[in-house]
């Protein structure tokens, strides 16, 4: 067990810090939450800066246009950018953190060449068209149809909760290509251009007040067959790759941000007298333990992803070959998503009544948006199922047999 960084890694950190210190002061002001074109421009502008400085796609394999950096370097990158208060990945979330890595892992050389460089350069934004009104947790129940017509699929159906749909150029879209197959077997993963005719995007207002996500209606949208990643009807497997990136690595940087907020809470409480409240103080102390441990768990997961020969497996949470994160991400996500909610509840206590009810305050907005963390990317209930079945090896529920037994009278 080693928590020290090598000289090379420390040098990398020092160079990165220097660079951040030189660019961050000159950054334009953040656009308001509902200024979508502004947000897109801002997020892409930051990505372009990262690209020009050689920090784009740090953790991607070199043959996918990335820098082939070690997971540790990527961890340092996330730590330092968060500490310095650099812009969050924002509209680039899907492209950089899961659609891109999925294409890097599963795409053909042509597909990688077409889609990956623009993500890294900050030229194109992706969104995720997985969920449907009747297929959320039960994602494989999706019904959006794609029918072959020559070298195109004709896609019809609707998607929901599509984050950043309004400003996206591409959508990682799940469609049903074989309606007669069992539900997990007839799905395909497509890259859909968002400017194709037949797409209607209707923004949905979140409880935090912003139009973070949207409904998407697809009416005979033509998508080239060449845009399919993975085999036809093999989309569920590709989806699992996408989801393991989404849960496995996408939240890592945020733990650092939470630790920063926690420090700010303590400073604020000392200033405004709330620190005298022993219950609140102890609550902050407990959160300190929580977020320190979550950061250590992150380091553990990252080290694990660096590859331990399976014969010497520590637990059954490790990643598959090819840098796909393991389901240890579910363990992390479960605890993190709840801890984040507790953090911003504590922030409300620090702010006092009026402050906590003031949506001009960043912490109030964060408190509202923290409610999404136990839902998005798979609800806590679904994560518990995953941990219990895939890590602990507990049996799957068999609802039909159960219902039959209950009808017989149960106990």
């Amino acid at each position: 067990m080693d928590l020290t960084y090598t000289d090379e890694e420390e040098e990398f950190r020092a160079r990165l810090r220097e660079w951040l210190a030189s660019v961050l002061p000159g950054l334009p002001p953040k656009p308001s939450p509902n200024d979508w074109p502004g947000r897109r421009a801002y997020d892409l502008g930051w990505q372009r800066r990262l690209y020009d400085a050689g920090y784009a796609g740090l953790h991607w394999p070199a043959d996918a246009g990335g820098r082939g950096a070690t997971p540790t370097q990527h961890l340092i990158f996330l730590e330092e950018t968060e500490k310095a208060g650099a812009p969050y990945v924002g509209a680039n979330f899907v492209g950089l953190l899961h659609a891109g890595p999925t294409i890097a892992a599963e795409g053909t050389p042509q597909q990688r060449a077409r889609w990956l460089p623009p993500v890294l350069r900050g030229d194109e934004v992706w969104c995720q068209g997985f969920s449907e009104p009747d297929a959320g947790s039960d994602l494989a129940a999706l019904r959006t149809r794609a029918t072959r017509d020559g070298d195109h699929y004709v896609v019809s159906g609707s998607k929901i909760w599509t984050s950043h749909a309004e400003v996206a150029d591409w959508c990682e879209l799940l469609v049903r290509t074989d309606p007669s197959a069992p539900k997990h077997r007839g799905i395909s993963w497509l890259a859909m251009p968002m400017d194709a005719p037949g797409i209607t995007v209707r923004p949905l207002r979140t409880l935090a007040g912003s139009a973070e996500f949207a409904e998407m209606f697809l009416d005979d949208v033509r998508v080239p067959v060449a845009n399919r990643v993975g085999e036809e009807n093999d989309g569920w497997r590709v989806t699992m790759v996408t989801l393991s990136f989404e849960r496995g690595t996408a939240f890592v940087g945020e733990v650092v941000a939470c630790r920063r907020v926690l420090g700010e809470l303590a400073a604020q409480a000392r200033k405004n007298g709330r620190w005298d409240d022993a219950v609140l103080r102890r609550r902050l102390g407990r959160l300190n333990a929580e977020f320190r441990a979550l950061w250590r768990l992150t380091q553990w997961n990252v080290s694990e992803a660096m590859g331990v020969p399976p014969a010497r497996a520590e637990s059954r949470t490790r990643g598959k070959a090819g840098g796909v994160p393991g389901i240890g991400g579910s363990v992390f996500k479960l605890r993190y998503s709840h801890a984040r909610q507790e953090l911003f509840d504590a922030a409300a206590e620090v702010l006092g009544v009026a402050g906590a009810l003031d949506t001009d305050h960043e912490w109030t907005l964060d408190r509202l948006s923290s409610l999404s963390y136990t839902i998005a990317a798979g609800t806590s209930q679904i994560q518990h199922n995953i941990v219990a079945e895939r890590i602990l090896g507990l049996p799957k529920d068999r609802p039909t047999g159960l219902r039959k037994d209950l009808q017989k009278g149960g106990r």
Partner: protein
Amino acid sequence: MRFQLTDDQRALRDGVRDLLAGRFDRDALRTAVDTPGHLDRALWRALGDAGFFALCLPEADGGVGLGLPEAVLVFEEAGRVLLPGPLVATHLAAGTVPGAATGERVVTAPAGELLPWRDASDVVQGDATGAVPLASVDPLTPLHKLPGPHAPRSPEAVLLTAAEQLGSAARTCELAVRYAGEREQFGQPIGAFQAVKHLCAQMLVRAELARAAVYAAAVTADPVEIAAAELLADEAAVRNARDCVQVHGGMGFTWEADVHLHLKRSWVRAGTGRTARETEEELAAAL
């Protein structure tokens, strides 16, 4: 940065696990429960022979010369099997009390307001005046209560106790998962029911977070990290034991199931350090 066990650390852990499986299996555990207050001296010497107490003693002094991370792995294993005795105190006395390192002498020390294993020990390190016996909730840990103000435990003692708590938390998770896979109701294993499944998943998550905290604290030896480890390991041990009882249903409420022994020991261990309130205050002060 490579926050994973090294090959040597893995081998050490596996070796201790094998040793304890051989020397302190379930029969031995039940025998110990049936003979309260009695410490198995032969077992103690066997532990000494295996280097359990001399682990962190420099090689020049006849020790194994390993560090806190290794000690934590060993104490985690002790916690898994509910190994009885003043293990932490004897381990920490290895350099100062003759015979402690080899397992010839049993050493105990005050821990908070409690003094475990006074009558069965050869040496009490620290002030034990006025100690009065207490009807210990844990049949495997005889206790005395100490009067007056108590000295804080050393950071090492706190951390090694947290490691035992971690071992216990991981073990009760395993016991629950095993039972949930075997016991059938409504025509299927109870582990297929989400209510049970989710209890088990929460146990794993608690244990894994505590593990990250305990191992990191062992590597850094930082007081704030140790406080975090203590808090999370206590929580994991106590709550996992409680959930494990629940998963076992009526069986969990019997003397026969081992679960209650984990619950009671985890309460005793949590009671031998600072209170959760004090630990939280320390963690707050560090912000």
